[in-house]
């Protein structure tokens, strides 16, 4: 793999680790970070987060990353998994993926 991909994957991993920390510390999910798979559903089945958690998540995303989700209902789709949230963060920070859009 060339260095651009390696760098992108590393950058994404840092964001994922931060998101896992939010899920565990702010939303009180009782799992070690390595057991939070990036494509696991956050709500409903999966980690079982609820609408209250969603509000907490919106606040945490704003505070941690400056990403604002609250006013756009279409942001809901991105909130379904850690990978979706990571896509949002990377886009917001203008850290474009290696090529093409993340989704």
């Amino acid at each position: 793999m060339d260095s651009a991909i390696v760098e992108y994957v590393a950058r994404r991993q840092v964001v994922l680790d931060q998101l896992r920390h939010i899920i565990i510390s702010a939303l009180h999910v009782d799992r070690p970070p390595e057991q939070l798979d990036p494509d696991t559903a956050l709500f409903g089945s999966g980690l079982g987060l609820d609408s209250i958690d969603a509000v907490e998540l919106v606040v945490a995303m704003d505070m941690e990353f400056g990403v604002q989700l609250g006013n756009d209902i279409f942001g809901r789709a991105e909130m379904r998994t850690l990978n979706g949230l990571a896509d949002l963060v990377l886009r917001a920070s203008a850290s474009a993926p290696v090529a093409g859009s993340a989704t």
Partner: protein
Amino acid sequence: MSVNATLAGDAALGLRTSVIVTRADHMQLLRFRGSDARRVLERLCAGAIRARDGQVQHVLLLDMHAHPFADAFLLADDDVYDLLYEGPTAVAMQAHVAEHVPHDWDVATEDLTATHGVIGVDGPFAWELVSRIAGAESVGLPYLTFFHVESFQCIRAGKTGEYGYLFVGPRQQLNDLVTRLQAAGQSLDLVTGSLQVLDDAALESGFFNIRGEGRAALTPIELQLQWRVLFDGDGVGVETLRRHRATGVTARVTTLVAAEQVLIGDEVWLDEQRVGTVLNVVWSVVRGDWILLALLDRGCAVPGIDRFRVRTTAGAVGARSVSPPVLNNASMFISPQMHSFATRGEIRLPPLVRR
């Protein structure tokens, strides 16, 4: 295009825009009764059992190699537990239970597959159709709960990313239920579904499919199913899984999209390095491209890379890794309290396809 393909296309679109009704003959039912029933299920399932009366839990059963054995919904219904599962045959499930449950535990099992069947109702307006059969009470039914209506359990659950319901009841009443659903669903543009449509939808929306990637001899760690495992529990296969985890897992399933056809088993390459294998693939009628699930080396098993090449017998096909779901499920934006199929044109929805 064949008639069957056209019908499948209609059903795939119907699932995403209106409602489909499917005979879920791939699902089987095993009932557990007795003072040790919960203990038995904690032994059989990989995760902790949390379902209380009236609740449904999505559970995973592993074999001794820590590979998926059955994908199931567990219903806690008064003094019994019903395991509504897919994967093994009823005979294989009975043998699995007999092998792993001590004979002196107080539990009786009853295979209801011969006498009971399942009808699935899925789509962004599935709730509207179900309410016409099961009454207004069903509209407020929380996800992963159920209630009794006539001779059926009406379960709010699905694996398509849309509103989903399962009617479980006596086989001799299934035809009548389907007839009533079809009559009530005419004004909702109801379409008849199929297992293929449900399986395609599962991959589009990021749901595990035991008939697809579930047959690849992988563990929940590679399959991103760790949320269904209690790692310090003693469920069947969990000890094996702990040992597997300790060795270090180097690959993970990842979703990709491709414009041209690829096949299960094709190799995935990134630049000049072989990085994985295609485990499952479907043609997405709604998107108009191929959706792949590939087992990739962890170093590149992330969304957002568009330089993958899948080596097929017809040549190399470009592929891009993405975050599932690959569609904007309309159900996320439709509220039974605010919307209806009749006024669907007024609902603000994002584009169906996520690019």
